[in-house]
């Protein structure tokens, strides 16, 4: 690993301090200062991004606000290396969603960038998943980072174990697939010992567990304080499950209280995570509608899908995220998720590209599916 340049170490230090101030402040001025400085560095270090901005007449010296920073769509990572310090790369995460490796987006992290991500994982989970500051056994319905080193979720879950898990915490998907027996044993043990546990994993992994319990007539009553964290949604899956159904299944089959079922929006292209506010609100006794929350080191805008111009709060459009922890690649990311800004945070309705295209078209995936 190469030593990072002084100016990068300097900004990283500032971002780290900002992240470690936690989630209970609204220091917008500092956010703006840091965002503009990161933008300046990214323009300096990433030539292709510089050209992209120049073509739009945007230079660090002629913008004054973070929301003017040009965002690149997520697919940009499929065609370009967009790292600030490519030679300093210590870790590369890849997007999923296609069987063809050359069509997967690659996001490179230098050592500093990875430390920023770690900090956001710690701070966000402290606030939104473990506001009660407990250590529990974390059972992860996902493969471990050793098996899938390029999967950002596995990396993040591993960090959660490190920061918040007991020594019994473990990943449940091995090389041979998901061993549900191990999970069931752990659930029984938790019930017997009265020690709360935390189950984390891909949303669809949970659905498989619920389906299994339904089929076998199994129901668990996990001790109070037990919680679930699911991420990933249902993209590309044959079955969609509504959030209400998911939460009520969590309650029915696992005995986890509704407010203790937390969903997380994580993206390979974004270092930070966006949690539901349900558990934090329940813990603090706040009665507010459910929403995804922007921790102070992030911002989210909604833009018009056709013109990409920002929309006022309350209108539905594409989500555009700004993340200080993205120092190592691109601060501003244009997602293809549909959502809207609410008074509490934002709502996400899922990926726009799933299933709303009209017309006589075929995807390559469709063609290969039919042929086989």
């Amino acid at each position, binding site marked *: 690993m190469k030593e990072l340049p002084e100016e990068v170490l300097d900004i990283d230090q500032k971002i780290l301090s900002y992240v470690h101030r936690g989630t209970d402040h609204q220091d917008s001025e500092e956010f703006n200062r840091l965002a503009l400085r990161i933008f300046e560095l990214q323009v300096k270090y990433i030539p292709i991004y510089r050209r992209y901005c120049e073509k739009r007449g945007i230079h660090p010296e002629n913008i004054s606000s973070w929301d003017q920073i040009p965002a690149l*769509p997520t697919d940009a990572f499929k065609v370009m290396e967009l790292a600030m310090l490519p030679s300093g790369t210590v870790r590369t995460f890849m997007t999923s969603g296609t069987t063809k490796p050359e069509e997967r987006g690659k996001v490179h992290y230098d050592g500093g960038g990875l430390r920023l991500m770690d900090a956001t994982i710690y701070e966000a989970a402290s606030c939104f998943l473990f506001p009660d500051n407990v250590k529990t056994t974390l059972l992860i319905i996902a493969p471990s980072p050793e098996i899938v080193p390029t999967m950002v979720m596995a990396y993040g879950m591993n960090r959660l174990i490190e920061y918040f898990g007991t020594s019994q915490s473990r990943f449940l998907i091995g090389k041979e697939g998901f061993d549900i027996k191990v999970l069931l044993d752990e659930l029984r043990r938790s019930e017997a010992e009265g020690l709360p546990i935390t189950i984390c994993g891909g949303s669809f992994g949970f659905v498989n567990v619920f389906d299994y319990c339904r089929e076998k007539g199994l129901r668990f009553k996990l001790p109070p304080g037990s919680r679930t964290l699911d991420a990933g949604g249902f993209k590309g899956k044959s079955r969609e499950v509504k959030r209400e159904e998911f939460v009520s299944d969590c309650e029915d089959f696992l005995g986890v209280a509704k407010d203790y079922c937390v969903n997380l929006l994580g993206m390979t292209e974004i270092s930070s995570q966006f949690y539901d506010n349900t558990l934090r609100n329940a813990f603090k006794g706040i009665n507010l509608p459910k929403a995804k929350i922007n921790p102070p080191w992030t911002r989210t805008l909604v833009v018009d*899908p056709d013109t990409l111009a920002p929309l006022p709060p309350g209108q539905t459009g594409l989500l555009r995220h700004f993340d200080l922890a993205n120092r190592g690649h691109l601060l501003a990311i244009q997602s293809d998720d549909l959502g809207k800004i609410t008074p509490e945070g934002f709502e996400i309705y899922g990926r726009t590209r799933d299933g709303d295209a009209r017309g006589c*078209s075929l995807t390559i995936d469709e063609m290969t599916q039919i042929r086989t």
Partner: protein
Amino acid sequence: MEIIEVDAYYLPADFRSQVNAFRTEVYQDEDITIHLKIPQISRPFVEALTDHLKKRRETYLASLPIGKIIDVLDEASRRWLEKDYPPRKLALKTIPAITHFSREVVEASIDVEMESSLREDIWRALCSEIKNPLFLDDFQYSPELGGYSRAFGPKLILSIFSENIPALPHLLFMRSVLLKAACLGKVAAGEPTFAPLYLKTIEEIDPEMAKSMAVLYWRGGEEEIEQAAFHQADAVIMFGGVEACESLRKKIPRGVKALLHGHKLGFGIIGRKGLGRQGLEELAARVAYDCSMFDQQACLAPHIYYVEAGGEVSPQAFCRTLAEAMERLNLKMPRGKISPGEASAIHQLRTKYELRELNNEEVLLLASPHGTDWTIVYEKDPGTFSPSPLNRFIRIYGVEDIFQILPSLKSIAPYLQNAAVAIGDHRERDFIRRLGELGLARITSPGKMPVPSMMWHHDGISPLASLLRWCDVEKKDREDGTEKK
């Protein structure tokens, strides 16, 4: 705010009293609200209706001379071509509001569909497929047979419409009645208003014929209704996605003929001889039309135009001329509104090309000044056929030699349907032969892709002849059953 009530169904005049419950679906567009009236239907209802249609066919349509049928269809097309025809004016409000195609696209669509559905086209289509249309009326002498032949159509054809081409459903009604078959159409939820209006036109012209025609609205997968309809029909014609067609194929009872038109891919080819400075703008206008008509949503639309290097004009220069043509056409016939997902897919893909262009790769991105109206991307043929995200997004692939594209076409051959070919030199004939061998069903010229003639062997089959049953009489001169000694 204008409120329009419109039917998503058509029932024969003497059957309308059978429905008494309706529900309404509301579609809201900028300044129009559509109240779509949908009858509540059940399995027994569908059975009674199909029974009725078949009886009315028996007493009228089955013995109506083909010439008279063509008169009715021709007259219907002519009425729809009149700018002031009230159902046309209504369709020009309802279809854009529901499909989000622009009014101009819908208008152009009605015009091209109806212009190719006049008397002469219909006669030619019949002659091309069954030689003598009078075979449909009675036994006719067939010199090849040395006897008499007659063609019988199905009693009832069930047609399942798609929503991607406004004004297309009339084609399936035409094909049905030309075969003297009663017809039941199922409208697509995405465009349910044209078909009922068209049948009202038939009713204006020949009320008796209209009694053997109906349109219903149900959601795909409503098993009860679907099964009833399938079991009553002798033939099913369907337009739809690959998966929808596949799942339907399994449900159609054995013995029912099925013509399933799944989604297909089109492309175009311009050889170096075709790329001269003279006529460049005209060529660009034609390609722009292929890419823009129906907002590229038809199976007929091109996903890629292959352009050969080495001509007087480079492929890149052609792209620039094409960009001007796309913009001009967009002003004249604007693209419709698209969904967030469709727009997002265009932005994502544009960025991939823009970054490669900024990276000094041999790539070009030319895009509408505003929003996602149209997009042209140029690159050297990467050797794989990548479908377009549609809505006026065309890929131009540069090739050194046009024959180099054949391997990449081969890999998706089952999905290829339609190609515009303008090679312009001695290689054209050989190239077309190769495309035919690959499985293409139609080869035309740039500018003609969206408008096949009625004579086209749709998806490679004879849409009329393949539904006929023939009866041959091997008796020569005397009709009393005795052969001449």
